[in-house]
């Protein structure tokens, strides 16, 4: 996408790039499918640099099948355009992303949102009543990152963020 022609943004007049400011803008962008997690929480931001008057953002994609990556790429370009920066997003596949890169803060937010964070499957507790040993309903859930479980105690069905 050409950052200078975004709908609703208008022409971008490039200004001197403040890398810290650009990083703050990018870090705060949320995952479109799990809107409590930011790019910073997910741990997918590899680098952010100035290059020929543009901000070059390098991110590592999460799951191969995650359709949110395309949206996140667009959101990065749009958010930086609103901050008057032209931007380019690059993907880096190596090393591959792992759920170990999700921050402590991100893990807490997932739990508070009702999604069991990516721990070992036998350590999963119900996000509602904290009871352990929920039952696995389906290895595949509503998004590429989640399996579907149900609490054996309170009956709450919930997503379990798969540990990858």
């Amino acid at each position, binding site marked *: 996408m050409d950052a200078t022609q975004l709908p609703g943004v208008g022409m971008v007049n490039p200004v001197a790039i403040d890398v810290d400011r650009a990083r703050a803008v990018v870090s705060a962008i949320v995952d479109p499918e799990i809107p409590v997690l930011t790019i910073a929480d997910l741990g997918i931001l590899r680098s952010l640099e100035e290059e020929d008057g543009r901000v070059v953002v390098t991110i590592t994609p999460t799951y*191969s099948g995650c359709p949110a990556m395309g949206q996140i790429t667009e959101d990065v370009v749009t958010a930086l355009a609103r901050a008057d920066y032209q931007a380019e997003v690059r993907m880096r596949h190596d090393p*591959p992303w792992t759920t170990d890169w999700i921050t402590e803060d991100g893990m807490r937010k997932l739990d508070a949102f009702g999604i069991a964070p990516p721990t070992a499957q036998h350590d999963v507790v119900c996000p509602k009543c904290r009871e352990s040993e929920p039952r696995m309903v389906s290895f595949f859930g509503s998004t590429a990152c989640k399996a579907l479980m149900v609490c054996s105690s309170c009956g709450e069905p919930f997503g379990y963020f798969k540990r990858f």
Partner: protein
Amino acid sequence: MSEYILSDAPQGTPSPDLGDHFIFLLAHADDNMVLAQRLGEWISKAPELEEDIAMGNFALDHLGVARALYTHAGEVEGKGRGEDKLAMYRSEREFMNVLLVERPNGDFAHTMVRQFLFDAYQVELWSYLSGSDDETLAGIAGRALKEATYHLRHSSAWVIRLGDGTDESNRRTQKALDRLWKYTAELFEGESERYRSAWESTVANVFDEAHMAIPEDPYQRSGGRRGFHSEHLGFLIAEMQWMQRSYPGLEW
């Protein structure tokens, strides 16, 4: 496993060189692209909701791997061809996927046996390629390995459940294996011969537990890696590409 006899592909046309890195990446991208299309055909038709979702997840994972490999292949080729050009503007004869992934879905048992045979192969493939000197490929493979391992857990569980189930489910699952087995030797042509024994041991264990018999007929089909396909691939590609071919350069 006994020796096998590989069919000859038609002669007279040049074969793509799988030793060429671009061709190698493209062939593996094609495997994942074609299988993603096949799995997508199940959406809204699976035996139960959980399997519908599972099939959609499998398809998305394979599609994601295909996209990453096409993009990388385009960079390696260096002629400005991106993922869309490589996926949508090559014809049937230019696709280098193995014949196994283009086999029509058949019933649920047939789809799961096909998936199991391929998952067991991809676990070995990605495990090996995650140590590639090509860092981008190593990264794509490292991620795909986790996904293939997850898929294998699901597909092998289904093969065992169906094979070790009722007489009817065993009969159908065995029939699927009898039909698909002749497309397995092709997985190990060339480079991938090195991880054949690990694959053989995985499938032997699962079919043993499922009370299924590996067919003894040594005849094996081949040709997909060289662009010689069954009559089924053309229809799949026509459906996949028609929008882009009818409206070249169309974007969402």
